[in-house]
C-alpha cells in the first residue's frame, strides 16, 4: 500500500536530485542536453567574479535576509506571544490578526508590499509608506526602500580597509561582504507574513509551562524580568530551535516573494540564488549552471535540516 508513494519519492525526489547533481557537472547550456563532463567548472564560475559576480552577490543577500528575517520573526513572535499570555481581552482576535498573513500566498504579499513600499519618484512625489510618514510628520524616515542600491560595507580606503588589504583580506572590505539595504524591504514583507508562526509556536510553549514554576520563582523573590530570563526563555529553547530550522530553510529557498515584490533589483540588490537559478535555467537555458545553483541550495538546506530530522526521529524512538 505504501509502495506507490515510496517509488514516487524515490524517483521524484532522490532520482531527480541525482539527475540535477549529475547535470551540474556537465556542459548543458542550451535546449538540447549536452552531457559532456566538465568537472567542477560550473561551480568554480559561480564562486568567481568572472564571467559574472551574480552568485556571490546572491549569497551576500541570502545571508543578510536569513539573519534579519530570523531575528525579526523570533523577537517579534516572542514579544507578541508574551503580550498575549497576559490574560488579554480579545486574545482570539489578536491571534487571528497576527496569523492571517500565513494563509496568504507570498505572491499576494509581494504585490501588496511592493505597492506599500513604492518610494515614488521626484515627478510624482512620495507614495506608499513614505507618503504616510510625511503625513504624520515623520518625513525624515522616507527612503528608497527596495529601490535603494546602497551596500553597507567596510570602505577599502578606511583605516580598517587598508589594514585588511595589507594582510591580504582585501575582499572583506568590498561590497561582496556587505549588507544590501534593499533587502530590508523584503525582510519586512517576509516578517509580516511569517512572524505569526513564531508567535503561535511561542504561545503554545508559554501555555505549556506550568504556573507553579512561575509561582515558585516569585515566592523565591524573582522579578518578572528574571522569571523570563532565567526560567521561561531557557525552557522555550527547543521551540526556538524548531523555528530557526523551519524559518531558516524557508529563507534559504525564498523565491516567490522576490519575484513578485522586487525582482533582482538594481545591480542585483535583491537577487537571491533561487531566483538566479530560475532565471538562468528557464529563461537563459543554462541548465548546467542552474543545476549547480540548485545543488548548492539543496546542500545548504540539507545541512540545516538533516541533523534536525535525525534528532527528531531519535527522540521519538526513545519515547
Amino acid at each position, binding site marked *: 500500500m*505504501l509502495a506507490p508513494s515510496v517509488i514516487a519519492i524515490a524517483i521524484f*525526489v532522490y532520482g531527480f536530485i541525482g539527475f540535477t547533481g549529475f547535470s551540474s557537472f556537465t556542459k548543458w547550456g542550451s535546449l538540447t542536453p549536452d552531457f559532456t563532463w566538465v568537472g567542477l567548472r560550473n561551480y568554480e564560475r559561480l564562486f568567481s567574479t568572472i564571467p559574472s559576480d551574480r552568485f556571490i552577490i546572491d549569497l551576500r543577500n541570502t545571508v543578510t535576509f536569513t539573519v534579519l528575517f530570523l531575528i525579526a520573526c523570533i523577537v517579534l513572535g516572542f514579544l507578541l506571544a508574551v503580550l498575549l499570555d*497576559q*490574560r*488579554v481581552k480579545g486574545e482570539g482576535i489578536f491571534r487571528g490578526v497576527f496569523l492571517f498573513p500565513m494563509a496568504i500566498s507570498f505572491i499576494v504579499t509581494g504585490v501588496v508590499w511592493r505597492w*506599500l513600499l513604492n518610494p515614488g519618484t521626484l515627478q510624482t512625489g512620495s507614495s506608499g509608506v513614505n507618503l504616510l510618514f510625511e503625513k504624520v510628520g515623520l518625513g525624515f524616515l522616507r527612503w528608497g526602500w527596495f529601490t535603494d542600491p546602497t551596500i553597507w560595507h567596510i570602505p577599502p580606503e578606511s583605516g580598517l580597509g587598508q589594514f585588511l588589504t595589507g594582510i591580504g583580506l582585501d575582499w572583506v572590505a568590498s561590497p561582496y561582504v556587505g549588507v544590501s539595504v534593499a533587502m530590508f524591504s523584503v525582510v519586512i514583507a517576509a516578517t509580516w507574513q511569517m512572524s505569526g508562526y513564531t508567535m503561535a509556536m511561542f504561545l503554545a510553549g508559554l501555555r505549556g509551562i506550568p*504556573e507553579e514554576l512561575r509561582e515558585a520563582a516569585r515566592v523565591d523573590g524573582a522579578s518578572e524580568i528574571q522569571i523570563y530570563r532565567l526560567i521561561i526563555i531557557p525552557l522555550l529553547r527547543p521551540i526556538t530551535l524548531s523555528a530557526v530550522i523551519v524559518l531558516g530553510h524557508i529563507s534559504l529557498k525564498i523565491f516567490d516573494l522576490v519575484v513578485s515584490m522586487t525582482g533582482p533589483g538594481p545591480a542585483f540588490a535583491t537577487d537571491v540564488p533561487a531566483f538566479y537559478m530560475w532565471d538562468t535555467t528557464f529563461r537563459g537555458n543554462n541548465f548546467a549552471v542552474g543545476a549547480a545553483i540548485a545543488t548548492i541550495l539543496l546542500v545548504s538546506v540539507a545541512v540545516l535540516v538533516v541533523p534536525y*530530522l535525525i534528532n527528531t526521529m531519535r527522540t521519538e524512538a526513545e519515547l
Partner: protein
Amino acid sequence: MTTQAHARQPIRWSRVLIYAALFLAAAFYLLPVYMLFITGMKSFQEVNLSRMWDLPTGFHFDSFITAWFGSEKEGITGLSGNFMNSIYLAIPATLFSAILGSLNGYVLAKWKFRGSNVLFPLMLFGMFIPYQSILIPLVQVLKNISLYGSIQGLIFVHVVYGIPITTLIFRNYFAEIPTELIEASKIDGAGILGIYRYILLPISLPGFVVVMIWQFQSIWNDFLFGVIVTSRPAVQPITVALNNMAGSYIVQWNVQMAGALLAALPTLLVFVFLGRYFMRGLLAGSLKG
C-alpha cells in the same frame, strides 16, 4: 492547555502598555489589508499616488470587475479563468493527496516493518528540499509523459510532492489511536485494508480536515510549480496570473489590488472559518505535531 489564572496583581499602567503594544502590532499586520481594501474600492478617477491613503469616495467595484473579467479596451486579461484553474487544480490535488497521505500514515503508524524508521525520515526530507533541485528533470519527465503544460500535470506534481507532509500529519494522527483496537480486529480476521476501511477511516475525519486545509492552502498559494509547469496563460493558476498582472505597466494599481484580494480570498475564508485546524497543520509542519 487551559488558560490558567495568573495570580499576579494587575497594575493599571502595565495593562495600558500591553494593550497599546498589541494595537500597534495589529496596525502593522492590518496595514496591507487596509491598503488592499481602500485601493480596490476606488474608482479609476480616484487612483492618484498623492492620495493613495485617502478613503475612497464610495463603494466602487469597477476595479474588481476589471480584475475579474479583464478589459478588452485596455488589453487586460481578467483573472476569472485563472481563479477557476486554481479551483480545478487545488480541489482534486487536495483530495488525492489526503487519500494517499492517510494510507501512508496508516501503514507507517500501525504496521511497523523492517526499515520503516529509516524510510519515514527519507520520505520527510522531501518536504524540505528546495524544489529548484528537482525542476530540471521534472520538466523533462512531464514532457515525456505528456503532462507538461496542463492542469493535470500540476495536479500530479502537487500530489507527488505533497506525499511527505500528508504522510507526516496522518502518521502522527493515527499514532494516537490505541493499537489494541487494531490488534483486536486482526484477531477477528480483518486484513490490512479492512482495518483501514472499517476502523480507521470512520474516525479520521479531523485528520482529513487538517491535511486538506494544509494542502489546499499550499497548492492554492503555490507559484513555483505553476510558473514552471504551465507556460500558457489559459491554464495558469491564479498566483502566476496575478504576478503577470502586477508586472504589467498597463494595469492600474486599483486593479492589481483588487486582483490580489481575489487571489487571497479562498485561503483567507478557510482561515477565518477553519482557523483551528489550520493551526494544527501549521504546528504539525514543524514536526512537533
